[in-house]
């Protein structure tokens, strides 16, 4: 299933946030969206998943999601959004219960996703007992449980420290190599973008527009921390964004 955005614009009152965004998200690829803070990249992600509606333009699903897909467009949030009163297992089962998946069928799915995210030993733990990295892995397990056609990741690693971030990036890459998934990955971290993105969409400052789309050909599993060609790409991206970021930083927050 592909996603196509055509002519998406958005404004709050008379304040323009996004301007004429057209973008293809092809199946089985990871598209990273980077941009200075306040360029509307998270808003764009909410449009793609239907949590918000753009004032102009449309977001299209092309093709039908696979049959066993319970929730085609599935988010992974920056703040994990785990229910603190449910165990790891309970948090995953939450999203299955509404689809009438209970008992042995649910157990099988939960065991599978917890094993894939290396959480099998922590099924009974409560979120308060987990580290940030583990919390995000629970959120990833929960997303995998509904077998999404497209994963929508909103700065999923931004709340984590840099070592945990490296580890989780490796986890994401190995998950993708095993079964390639489609993903839109919003981040302000260029290192994450060059490690995980098949293509990187660089957005400009408010009103957010697409400035450039950079394609990276190197396979994900061959990208390593500190690769010189990736550094080169990262430098190029930074040079695209640098002035914008400086200007965005000097802007007053619009409430």
């Amino acid at each position: 299933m592909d996603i196509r955005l055509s002519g998406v614009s958005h404004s709050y009152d008379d304040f323009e946030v996004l301007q004429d965004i057209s973008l293809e998200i092809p199946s089985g690829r990871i598209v990273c969206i980077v941009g200075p803070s306040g360029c509307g990249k998270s808003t764009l992600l909410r449009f793609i998943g239907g949590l918000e509606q753009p004032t102009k333009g449309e977001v299209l699903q092309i093709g039908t999601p696979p049959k066993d897909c319970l929730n085609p467009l599935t988010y992974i949030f920056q703040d994990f959004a785990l229910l603190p009163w449910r165990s790891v297992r309970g948090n995953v089962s939450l999203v299955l219960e509404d689809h009438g998946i209970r008992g042995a069928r649910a157990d099988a799915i939960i065991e599978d996703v917890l094993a894939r995210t290396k959480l099998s030993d922590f099924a009974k733990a409560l979120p308060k007992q987990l580290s940030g990295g583990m919390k995000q892995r629970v959120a990833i397990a929960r997303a995998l449980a509904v077998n999404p056609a497209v994963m929508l990741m909103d700065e999923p690693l931004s709340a984590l420290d840099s070592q945990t971030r490296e580890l989780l990036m490796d986890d994401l890459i190995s998950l993708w190599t095993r079964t390639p998934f489609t993903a839109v990955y919003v981040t302000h971290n260029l290192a994450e973008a060059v490690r995980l993105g098949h293509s990187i969409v660089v957005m400009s400052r408010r009103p957010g527009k697409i400035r450039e789309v950079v394609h990276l050909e190197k396979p994900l599993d061959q990208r390593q921390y500190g690769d010189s060609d990736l550094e080169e790409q990262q430098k190029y991206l930074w040079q695209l964004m640098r002035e914008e970021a400086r200007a965005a930083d000097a802007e007053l927050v619009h409430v």
Partner: protein
Amino acid sequence: MSDLKAPQMPARQSTANQPKARQVTFRGGGFAPVSHRWIGVAVFVLLITLAEIGTRQGWITSLTLPRPSDVLETFGELYSSGLLWTHLSVSLMRLLVGAALGASFGVAVGVMIGLFSYVRAGLVPLTAALFPIPKIALLPLFVIWFGIDEGSKYALIAFGTFTPTVVATYGAVDNVDRSLIRMGQSFNLSWFSIVRKIVLPGAMPGILSGLRISLAIAIILLVAAEMLGAEHGIGAYILEAGSLYDLERLFAGVAILSLLGIGMSAVISLIERRLLNWRQ
């Protein structure tokens, strides 16, 4: 490898040249509640002992304060005559029925206010208008509406617990983390599932702490309700003792109310420990 040798420590200067060393003063204490369970008990014991000594030695007259040991004796008589249970059972029944009615309606209305903006617009001003009314003032009205016997007492207690419960509940629902609700929507959870599995558990801490206040109010209103046409009940017992100026019995009754309050608070703490063990 010779160039990797650790740099030589400079030889110690004579102490006269060294700057004075002083321990950094600690200033991070306080503002962190620590549980000291026994201090509470000690305060009670201290006050009661003081009263006992005072009344025995005569610097507290028996008109000012009854002797604690006499109060205890009265309490013993009350217990052995079986009257304690007669009064307590009637009162507990009233408290239980009234508070259960008030709290459950209160939680229901509070959740509705939290979830539907029309209900909020309609009922928040009404609750604000009802809250400050001293419910005791409405007792005659309740007697006409619900009869002189149990009905009016249940109604008074229920009404008194209802308003604070409503306010606490909708506040708690408002405070549920929006990002969790958004998560529920993003996984296509039904509206009912979101309310049952995200909003209600998320509001539970606020609802329970509201219940603490509501139940204390219920005990206050219990006494008020028993002012009128009640033969038995802790409130009736206290009022009778008060009108006879029988301080021992008055204090015995008041002590029972206090114990009731402590009991209720303990029950809520127990529920909190069971239900809210997920909190940090």
